[in-house]
């Protein structure tokens, strides 16, 4: 049956792409079609995961001559298919309504379709060529989507950096895959992983895979493009890029490092853990410094990808030392978090899209009080914020709890380095979770709460019903996966078994709903009971407060300790909210410079505070390269303006050199 599903997926893909031509600019039609397409993908992946069958493959005489195009669906692919199609399902649904808020549909629609299709195909591809083909097509189509608002200067810059980093990543992956393919002389994944390999070569491949997948996923220091490119696209595309495309990168990494490489070296996991740990904290600190809501969300993607990679790194470490159960646990946590992140990040981006279409603003400093005008967006955004802050009882907490539990397994690792490293990563994780919470207090508090800071914010109205429905669907998933995490863990079973050879949470028919708790060693977390208890306690309190207390209330002007100030400008801003944290972490990370400009008393003028943040990674890692290229190209540019005689001298010298080589070397 799955064979038919796979075939169906592939054929519908072609069918689907060909619709671009027919549909022209009828965006509702395209988005409905995308909903159907991703819905079908969703069904396929679910049926595959639940049926627990082994892989199915299929090949066509297309693509690379003599190799052909191979496609395969297995547990790993189908889990990521689930993530991709869940995200695209909701985003397309959102697009049905959101599309009417955007102009120039013809710049997004064709690429949107290709983007969705290519993400699916990357996961199904089972040979190096098809994989990279769709990988690069995914980058290309998302670049085109980023460029859809092409009039802005920043967009051009964002798109430029994005596609360059994407090609860098593709080249790195190409390098890695070629090195794997070389000994087995086949580009087909099935044959590629079977050859044993020299440790140094394997390490090189690993580094390249990390570079390739990491640049797409946005690991620090390869993240520079991400906060520029993701916000520039239309919001439902940003949601897909941040929530889903980064997961495709994670998939690529797992596929190459865990499946195509025969064995892993010890230091790899150390490297991953360090990079991932830094990514989590630095990502969230960057986010805290932003006041553009979409850019802030994009920076949070860096943090969450860091968390996913912490899980992957741990899983690798445990696997190397033969602790398969712990490895399975860490991988479960990583994949669970990947799914969770795709859900709440989609939700938050969709929410920010709703805000943007309602107020035409992305700058939080110009928003405020939207909870009154946009109640549905506000509610769902709140759910998303709680989830991304890893707070119980929502899904974000469950995956971080699992990750913490797998960190707690680390003392059994024999390596001393790991013993010290892993707890520090745990501390980083905790720090990033707490900072994420404060970041989302800021986002939510400044955007939705308080008093409106601009006219647009005052008159904003709730977004269309399709968008609201899409957001509610995601919010519902956030809650459901938080209360019944076993649902996801059940789905993850075959995937984790494929990667880590075992499954931490035993799969039995009974375990689908009962027991509801997650148990690691003796430690337990039971989301369902927790919510039940919360409900009971809340009910009790509501009843007793009603019975006990006075129910009189009246609306009054704000008190504010006796210093009420009417102007909304006197509220806390996003910038001032982050000030304490900026003061603590800023000097070290961003080389912050704060300057307060006060006018002289006799010359009344508004005082100003100037904050300068420097992206040090950009300045010390990327800028020099760009400068060097610029300088070299400036230096050699004279070669365009030589006289004919000088060109002849060049030819002459080349000839003499080559003859000299012949005379003296051979």
């Amino acid at each position, binding site marked *: 049956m799955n064979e038919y599903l796979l075939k169906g997926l592939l054929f519908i893909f072609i069918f689907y792409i060909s619709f671009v031509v027919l549909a022209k600019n009828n965006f509702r039609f395209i988005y409905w079609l995308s909903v159907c397409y991703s819905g079908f993908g969703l069904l396929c992946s679910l049926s595959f995961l639940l049926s627990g069958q082994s892989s199915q493959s299929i090949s066509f005489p297309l693509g690379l*001559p003599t190799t052909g195009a191979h496609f395969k669906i297995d547990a790993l692919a189908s889990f990521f298919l689930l993530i991709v199609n869940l995200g695209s399902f909701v985003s397309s649904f959102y697009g049905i309504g959101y599309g009417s808020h955007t102009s120039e549909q013809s710049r997004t629609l064709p690429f949107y379709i290709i983007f969705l299709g290519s993400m699916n195909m990357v996961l199904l591809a089972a040979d190096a060529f098809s994989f990279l083909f769709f990988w690069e097509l995914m980058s290309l189509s998302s670049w085109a989507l980023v460029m859809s608002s092409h009039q802005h200067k920043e967009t051009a810059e964002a798109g430029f950096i994005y596609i360059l980093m994407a090609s860098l990543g593709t080249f790195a992956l190409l*390098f890695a895959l070629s090195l794997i393919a070389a000994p087995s002389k086949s580009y087909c994944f099935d044959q590629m992983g079977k050859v044993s390999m020299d440790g140094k070569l394997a390490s090189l491949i690993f580094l390249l895979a990390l570079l390739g997948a990491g640049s797409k996923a946005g690991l620090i220091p390869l993240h520079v493009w991400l906060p520029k490119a993701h916000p520039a696209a239309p919001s439902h595309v940003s949601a897909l890029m941040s929530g889903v495309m980064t997961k495709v990168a994670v998939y690529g990494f797992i596929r190459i490092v865990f499946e195509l490489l025969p064995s892993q070296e010890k230091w790899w996991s150390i490297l991953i853990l360090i990079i991932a740990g830094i990514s989590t904290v630095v990502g969230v600190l960057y986010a805290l410094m932003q006041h553009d809501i979409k850019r802030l969300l994009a920076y949070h993607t860096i943090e969450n990808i860091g968390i996913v990679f912490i899980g992957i790194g741990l899983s690798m470490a445990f696997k190397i030392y033969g602790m398969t159960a712990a490895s399975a646990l860490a991988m479960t946590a990583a994949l669970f978090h990947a799914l969770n992140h795709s859900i709440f990040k989609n939700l938050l981006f969709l929410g920010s899209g709703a805000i943007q279409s309602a107020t035409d603003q992305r700058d939080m400093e110009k928003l405020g009080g939207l909870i009154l005008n946009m109640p549905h967006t506000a509610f769902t955004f709140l759910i998303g914020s709680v989830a991304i802050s890893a707070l119980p009882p929502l899904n974000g907490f469950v995956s971080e709890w699992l990750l913490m539990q797998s960190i707690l397994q680390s003392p059994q690792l024999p390596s001393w380095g790991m013993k010290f490293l892993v707890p520090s990563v745990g501390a980083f994780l905790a720090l990033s979770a707490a900072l994420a919470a404060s970041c989302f207090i800021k986002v939510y508090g400044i955007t939705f709460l308080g008093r409106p800071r601009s006219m647009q914010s005052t008159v904003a109205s709730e977004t269309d019903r399709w968008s609201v429905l899409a957001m509610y669907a995601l919010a519902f998933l956030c809650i459901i996966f938080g209360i019944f995490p076993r649902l996801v863990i059940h789905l993850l079973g075959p995937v984790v078994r494929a990667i880590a050879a075992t499954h931490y949470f035993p799969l039995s028919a009974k375990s689908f709903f009962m027991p509801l708790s997650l148990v690691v060693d003796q430690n337990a977390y039971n989301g369902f009971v927790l919510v039940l208890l919360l409900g009971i306690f809340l009910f009790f309190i509501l009843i007793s407060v009603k019975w006990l207390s006075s129910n009189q209330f009246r609306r009054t002007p704000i008190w504010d300790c006796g210093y009420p100030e009417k102007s909304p400008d006197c509220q806390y801003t996003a910038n001032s909210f982050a000030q304490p944290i900026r003061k603590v972490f800023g000097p070290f990370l961003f080389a912050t410079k704060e300057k307060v400009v006060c006018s002289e008393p006799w010359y009344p003028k508004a005082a100003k505070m100037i904050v300068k943040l420097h992206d040090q990674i950009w300045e010390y890692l990327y800028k020099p390269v760009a400068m060097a290229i610029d300088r070299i190209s400036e230096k050699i540019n004279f070669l365009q303006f030589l006289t*004919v005689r000088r060109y*002849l001298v060049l030819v002459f010298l080349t000839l003499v050199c*080559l003859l000299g080589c012949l005379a003296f070397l051979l």
Partner: protein
Amino acid sequence: MYLKAILLFPLIGILLLSLIRSYRISSFLNTLFSFLSFASSLLLLVKRESAGLFFVVDELNIVFILLTNFVGFTTALFSQHYIAHEIKTGHISAVSLRFYHGMYQSLLFGMNLALCSNNIGLMWVAIEIATLSTVLMVGIYRTAEALEASWKYFILGGVGIALALFGTFLFYISARPAIGEGLSAMAWTNLLSHASNLDTSLLNIAFVFILLGYGTKAGLFPLHAWLPDAHAEGPTPISAVLSGLLLNVALYAILRFKMLLAANPHALQAGPLLMSMGLASVLFAALMLYKRRDIKRLFAYSSIEHMGIIAFAFGIGGALANFAGLLHMSMHSLTKSAIFFAIGYISQIKRTQKIADLSGLTASHPVLGWGLVFGVLAIAGLPPMGVFMSEFLVLSSAFAKAPLLAALLACGLIIAFGALLLKLVQVAFGEPKGTSTVVPSLYLPMLSHFLLILIAGIYIPPHVVEWFKHTSLLLK
């Protein structure tokens, strides 16, 4: 017979077209003759003749004959409207027009002759005919810049001619003891079958001369100097044919000679030589792209880059890389000529070739703008276009064999991509600026090329694969 036809039609074309004064008739005839040679080259697929002392059609050249005649035909189509506008604006006089069409056919004749000749001397003559015709065409606008470009091309090309001729002599001399005197010692088929008996050391020197001589035509660094100016200052159809075809023909000649070297076990390894020249071309062209202000010159440098990639691919050697090189040659010629078609109309519409004066083309002229975007992305090696496949193969075989050099190549590609993209974004996106004139234009040539590279990116017909594979084995 068909072989004769592809040579005969352009010959008749030269004679006839240099006599006809009317623009309408001559441009139609030009297209017609190009089409006739294209049609006969298609028939060549059906029935191939066995190799004679002068002509041969084999797995290596059939694809290029087909490609040359196809691009020749589409360019003729493109040039109909292009030249009509040039005449209207007074850029080209009536005399020049006769000259132009005659030279166009003579260029096609030269290239066809070079591709199907079985004689190293004849090939040399043919390439000279092709070069000289383009020299004349580059200078056709008679502006100071055009004449200068033409002069540069002529002098450097002339030196190339001389060097290639010396190389050809040396090949003959090295073959003479083994094959005997006379014409037979200049025939490819004989040379190839006796390759292992040829004088090894002479072969090496000969190859150096051939590489430099024909390498000048192919625009490899540091012999490239004529190329950017010739592309930028001549009429755009000529830029398209130069980049799309003539460079290929020159490389084809080098390949033929490399084949001989490969067949001789003691001869010098041509690989490292080609690789280093190719790599140098890629890196050099990539860096030069950043400071370009003229859009045609920009893509001329991109052609240098791609010739570098191809040379690099053949330099690596091995079935896969050679296959990739051949594929890249075909893909590059299709893509680059299509880009020049787009640019031709754009520069006529906007009356400028300056990148800084072009902006927002996707908004103001969707077909041309998106066509340019498509072409540039294709040439930069992005899927689903054909160059992606050939670059995939080049890089992947290079990564496996010479990782360090391949990494350098990849760097060069990224740097070049960055530059192209920077200019592309400037030209195609943003707010449109400047005034535009209405230009009669035909998009069919451009779109047909795009369709072909799109198909090639996904599916390559098994016949072509077989030909390429056979050739790759000969190239080692």
